[in-house]
């Protein structure tokens, strides 16, 4: 799975909790919580979406690593690669 494919799926999971998101406008380094006004329930739902899309579990301890689009793509790439 390429980073571009991962990014597409991540954006799809994000769009499920923030429907007004326009993928092209999201800066790769922007803090998602601030940028998209995401609360803990949205965040949890997003993580559930990621978990289902990529077949990975994401420990609570890793949540803090997942603050930007770039970080998430990197994290998922590492986790998928490790599998």
């Amino acid at each position, binding site marked *: 799975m390429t980073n571009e494919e991962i990014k597409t799926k991540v954006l799809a999971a994000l769009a499920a909790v*923030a429907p007004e998101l326009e993928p092209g406008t999201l800066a790769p380094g922007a803090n998602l919580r601030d940028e998209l*006004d995401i*609360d803990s*329930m949205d965040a949890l739902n997003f993580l559930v979406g990621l978990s289902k899309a990529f077949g990975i*579990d994401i420990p*609570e*301890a890793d949540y803090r690593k997942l603050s930007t689009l770039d970080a998430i793509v990197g994290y998922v790439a590492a986790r998928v690669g490790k599998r």
Partner: protein
Amino acid sequence: MAEFLLPKLGADMSRGRLVEWVKKPGERIARGEVIAVIETDKANVEVEAFESGTLEKVLVEPGDEWLPVGTPLAVIGAAGAEAPAPSAGEKPARKPEAAVPAAAKPAPEAPRVPAVPPPKPKPPSKAPPPHAPAVPAPRAAEGTRLPASPVARRRAAELGVDLATLRGTGPDGRIVLADVESVAGAAVAKRPAGRPAPAAPLTAAEKAQEKRARMREAIAAAMARSKREIPHYYLGTTIDLTRAMAWLASYNAERPVTERMLYGVLLLKAVAAALREYPELNGFWTEGRAQLADSVHLGVAISLRGGGLVAPALHDADKLALPELMRRLQDLVTRARASSLRSSEMTDATVTVTSLGERGVEAVYGVIYPPQLALVGFGKVVTRPWVADGEVAPREVVTATLSADHRASDGHRGALFLDAVDRLLQEPEKL
């Protein structure tokens, strides 16, 4: 045979738009089943049937028209009755305006809240109902009537305007003809001077703006009423959440992301359980007295993307185990944001809980959602130096606040309630 009327889904609703019929003429309906989808100023709501029966006939087709609360939407036949086969010549539905004269009849299922209390409230003339009503809107006491002039009543019936939604501007707050005609729109106003020309179709941006404006109006009406009528008192306490957060972390560590809980669920459960101990905070102020609810239905304040909020009910939160409560909360938030709440969720909440900790504030002093008796607020969980047993140690703490109606409870009981929330959160495993 009963008319299915547009229900009043909360103190801030005066009108609605029919989005969709979920049931079709001839279909059987069980009590509690979703029959239609209604758009209110705040959300799309799946409206449930109050009685079992057969949907005999729809009186209104889905459309953009705003219908006043109480407008007959359909005819529901008795549970056993067969729906009559529609005859070839029969029109399937009337236009809403043809259906409006019956709108003046009060909806038995959805008692109305007067937008303004009568200037001289009469003492309650009947005992409180034995159980919490399905809809929290207070039923007008027997023998009390909204003060409205005869011609205002007649015109309201003609136009399908619910008098309960009006603010009377006549002497002593009487609803007069001008009040009815002003809400019914410029088309029927007595003096058409200055009436704007028919509007061009709205753009998507204008529609969104209009929707936001409508939500603000609905919130404004309910919140202004609250501050006008309810003597609020406010209490706050800082609660040590260290044990609860540690317990939750170990709970979540053992579970996949789909089964994890948010700490907010612990707070909700503790509030619900504490309300069982202090029932004077749980219920409604109607007919000049507190009517306490038998069940604890937590109204969870949910902010909506793009602004505004709703506070749908988590039913029987005190009786649900934490994982089930989490599942229900997740479902409720998702549906609130997808605008697919159900009518019982819009009307049943007996108390409201709000948390603004997500955005960094430490305490919330909220406005009670009328006719409820209290609102519980939580700020963010922060790590603070804390003195326990003479030692200073870092602890995770949260500030819990209570806004309560002083007519129904006093600060002493309110303080004991917050203390109970604290106590319950110290033993998260027992929640």
